[in-house]
């Protein structure tokens, strides 16, 4: 019989208003922040900034600088003009897509600026070929130059004859930007590949959210083919986002469908279902909003976690409505009071478990921690504040499938107790066999699975002439410029044999193009000896060109005046710009540094050989190796935090249940985790950091099961809630285990296994009072 609660009309409203206020705040933050953030699919951003030397970090930032947002496009044609036409059409398409903030096809003729800026030092700058020619036979050299004046080709030389009488400076500038095979045609950079020409186009992508990244992936897929190639970091990101999004929607949708079906089957009414969905939605909304507010951008693994959180946050709703089925005497508030201990302990343990993640130095784990804590808290608040007022009339029917739940709660533990010794033996064997075989894998390359098509395109682009540098490079330091350049030269000499044997394609270094101050003086003296002092230049200019004597005198005067010019490295770098500028790390605190970039490292043996060249003042940076070390290090930390969380939770529960009972409750999920690790090992899976992530989540869920079995105390309704929760979670996480993204798959698999085992173990730690099974007859 239902007695209306003797409340004044105002009081039931207060909790509801409070809840509405919280939701409004969450909604506000969500709308304000989330639409402009890019969803991160880069696994590397899950890792903390490794405490590296500031110099290494600066180097990496400089090298990465432009690459993050740039996509390189090549348009193919059978002739130069065809390639340019294709590229022009492509540029238009890219502009119209709205995804690019800058599309660069035509080069601004900026090269002239370099010419002007270094002009004062023109007699100090010589390229190797010119230097050799002058040293060998300056007469032949000069004759060849003058010859070109008489052909239609000598225009550049003729135009600068007075400034650069032997065209030595012009030749230096020409080869400064020379990329083998590249040509400028109608202001467009062309690359030659056999019979075809490829026009180069650079696109800078705008920062965008999920939708934008999907659009980018779609655009690329529609354009790419034999005659349009593209490569760049944003593309990998876009394809990763597309794939992850497909999987997340699938998982999220199926989770929700599963919940809907089970709820309808079990509770046979629409209202509990709607309220459950509401608590989920609100939980995810608040979690997402707060994560974006605190972290600025959301990583895809947090979203993956979020879609899984759907399965957990609905637990509190399950318990509420299942309990209402059990006891039709209680009104809505009393139902709440009945389940409050259970769900509060559950929330408390979960908050501790995930809150602990906020303490780790991992941005990825921190995000997941915050997401879970806020999501669960919000779901709990929804049940506590909203349900009593909105849960509606009592259900008429009884608990469905009562025998099934009785079996779970009573028969299964009884069975286990009867056969405890064989089962225990089996368990120990299982654990031993598995744990002894545990393999760990910390290789980031096994977890990154870039799209195969994109990789193939990148290889083709590299073959045509536009390579992406390797992730390994050297940082060379010296007390000052001179020392730095000398150290670089020494390193380059050591790289020469590797290059000759083909194990290293090429390198890029400042000293490859910049002559040291000593070298500059030598250059000047060479020109002086070979052209001026012997009267060769003056003579040839007079006889062959019939240059006016005052013009010749002017030239010699200018040459003499330039005798003491010295070009500083920093000025040279500032003038020449790309691709040399990122290599310069500047001078500070009594040491100057630069980067030597490496291209085309053949194999691991070469990597070792390169690493061996490291020395005082020469640092070998291997980003892949660094990440792998970080992965290993933090796999250890994550596992430690896992145990720490268990300890804290035991303490927390001990307050309410007493130490012994708390220990039992904690033991169930712990055993489940160990068994999961054993199972993964027996299945031959190498344990990665993402498996540990999954285990962390399994801990939270498994704990909930154990707590509810222990404290829920309302027998069948508790069992029903637990079973419902398992089924929905298993569905969601099982699906993640089928993902094609390696780290999501690892996560889903360990999670699904963990909660299933926790489910099996939970009733075993239920209180002693359940032994007789009497309280199950309602």
């Amino acid at each position, binding site marked *: 019989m239902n007695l209306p609660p003797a409340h004044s009309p105002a009081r039931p409203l207060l909790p509801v208003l409070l809840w509405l206020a919280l939701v409004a705040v969450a909604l506000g933050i969500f709308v304000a922040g989330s639409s402009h953030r890019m969803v991160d699919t880069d696994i590397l951003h899950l890792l903390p900034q490794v405490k590296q030397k500031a110099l290494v970090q600066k180097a990496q930032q400089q090298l990465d600088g432009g690459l993050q947002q740039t996509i390189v496009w090549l348009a193919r044609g059978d002739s130069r*003009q065809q390639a340019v036409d294709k590229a022009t059409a492509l540029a238009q398409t890219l502009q119209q897509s709205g995804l690019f903030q800058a599309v660069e096809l*035509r*080069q*601004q*003729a900026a090269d*002239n600026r370099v010419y002007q800026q270094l002009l004062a030092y023109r007699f100090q700058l010589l*390229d190797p*070929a*010119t230097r050799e020619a002058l040293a060998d036979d300056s007469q032949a050299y000069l*004759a*060849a*130059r*003058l*010859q*070109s*004046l*008489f*052909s*239609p*080709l*000598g*225009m*550049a*030389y*003729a*135009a600068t*004859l*007075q400034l650069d009488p032997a*065209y030595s400076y*012009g*030749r230096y500038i*020409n*080869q400064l930007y*020379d990329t083998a095979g590249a*040509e*400028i*045609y*109608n*202001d467009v950079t062309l690359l030659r590949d056999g019979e075809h020409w490829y026009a180069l186009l650079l696109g800078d992508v705008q920062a965008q959210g999920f939708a934008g990244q999907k659009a980018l992936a779609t655009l690329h897929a529609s354009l790419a083919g034999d005659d349009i190639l593209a490569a760049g970091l944003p593309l990998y990101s876009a394809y990763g986002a597309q794939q992850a999004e497909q999987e997340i929607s699938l998982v999220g949708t199926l989770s929700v469908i599963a919940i809907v079906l089970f709820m309808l089957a079990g509770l046979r009414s629409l209202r509990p279902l709607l309220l459950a969905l509401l608590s989920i939605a609100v939980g995810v909304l608040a979690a997402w909003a707060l994560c974006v507010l605190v972290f600025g951008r959301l990583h895809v693994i947090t979203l993956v976690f979020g879609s899984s959180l759907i399965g957990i946050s609905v637990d509190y709703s399950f318990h509420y409505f299942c309990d209402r089925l059990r006891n039709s005497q209680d009104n809505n508030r009393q139902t709440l009071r009945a389940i409050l201990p259970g769900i509060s302990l559950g929330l408390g343990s979960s908050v501790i478990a995930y809150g602990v993640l906020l303490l780790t130095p991992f941005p990825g784990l921190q995000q997941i921690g915050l997401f879970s804590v806020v999501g669960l808290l919000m779901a709990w608040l929804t049940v506590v504040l909203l349900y009593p007022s909105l849960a509606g009339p009592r259900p008429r029917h009884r608990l469905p499938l009562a025998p099934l739940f009785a079996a779970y709660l009573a028969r299964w533990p009884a069975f286990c107790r009867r056969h405890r010794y064989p089962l225990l033996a089996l368990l120990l064997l299982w654990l031993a066999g598995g744990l002894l075989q545990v393999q760990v894998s910390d290789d980031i390359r096994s977890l990154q699975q870039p799209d195969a098509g994109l990789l193939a395109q990148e290889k083709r682009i590299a073959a045509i002439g536009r390579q992406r540098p390797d992730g390994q490079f050297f940082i060379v330091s010296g007390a000052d410029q001179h020392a730095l350049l000398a150290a670089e030269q020494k390193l380059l000499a050591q790289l020469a044999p590797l290059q000759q044997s083909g194990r290293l394609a090429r390198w890029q270094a400042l000293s490859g193009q910049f002559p040291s101050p000593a070298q500059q003086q030598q250059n000047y003296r060479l020109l002086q000896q070979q052209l001026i002092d012997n009267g060769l230049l003056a003579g040839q200019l007079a006889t*062959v*060109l*019939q*240059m*006016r004597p005052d*013009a010749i005198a002017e030239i010699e005067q200018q040459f003499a005046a330039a005798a003491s010019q010295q070009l500083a490295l920093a000025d040279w770098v500032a003038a020449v710009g790309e691709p040399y500028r990122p290599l310069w790390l500047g001078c500070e605190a009594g040491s100057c540094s630069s980067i030597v970039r490496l291209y085309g490292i053949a194999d691991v043996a070469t990597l070792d050989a390169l690493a061996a060249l490291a020395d005082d003042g020469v640092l070998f940076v291997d980003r892949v190796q660094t990440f792998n070390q970080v992965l290993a290090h933090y796999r250890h930390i994550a596992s430690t935090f896992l145990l720490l969380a268990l300890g804290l939770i035991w303490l927390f529960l001990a307050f309410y249940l007493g130490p012994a009972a708390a220990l039992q409750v904690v033991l169930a999920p712990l055993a489940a985790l160990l068994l999961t690790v054993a199972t993964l090992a027996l299945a031959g899976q190498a344990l990665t950091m993402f498996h540990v992530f999954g285990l962390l989540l399994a801990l939270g869920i498994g704990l909930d099961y154990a707590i509810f079995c222990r404290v829920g105390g309302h027998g069948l309704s508790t069992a029903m809630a637990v079973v419902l929760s398992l089924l929905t979670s298993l569905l969601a996480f099982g699906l993640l285990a089928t993902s094609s993204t390696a780290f999501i798959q690892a996560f889903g698999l360990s999670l699904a296994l963990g909660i299933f085992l926790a489910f099996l173990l939970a009733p075993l730690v239920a209180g002693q009072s359940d032994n007789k099974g009497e309280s199950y007859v309602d």
Partner: protein
Amino acid sequence: MLLRGLLLGLLLIATLAEAGVADIAARLQQPAVLHGRFVQQKHMAVLAVPLVSQGAFTVVRDHGVIWQTEKPLASRLLINKDGIRGADIGDSRAMAYIGNILHAILSGDLSALEQQFEIAASSSENRWQLQLVPRSSLLKKAIMAIELQGDQHIRQLQLQEAGGDRTDIVFSAFVPADTADDGLLHEFAAGP
């Protein structure tokens, strides 16, 4: 009536101008092989007198141009779609496509020239004139304009550089042929 006549007249002039380039292209003989001689005068601000060179050239249609300077310094340049051979690599790199332009001019390939230049045409009874202004900003920095004159062959080329220098080339002694001898083709095929 008057208006219509005016409009017709304007239309006629417009079509005549457009027809100009195509018309000239039609008038140009484009034999398979063309031999000839040239005299090049280069006027430079720093020099008291112009640089004069003379020699012979050969254009093989669809292959390239051989530019053989005889006086005052002998040199042999081979210009084809791959680039320029015979010039030192340090010099020719910057001028890789100047060779293309020369090839297009000498073989009378006005459509190729139209891709790189805006062409203004004018013609009279037996002579025509073309003025070429570069489209690309990079090219504009070097070349201000190129003027071509001729009848069934290009007779004169005047290249006005942006820096003020001027090159005048006069072509003469044209000898067309139907086939190129093997030695020549071999030279083109040999690659840069």
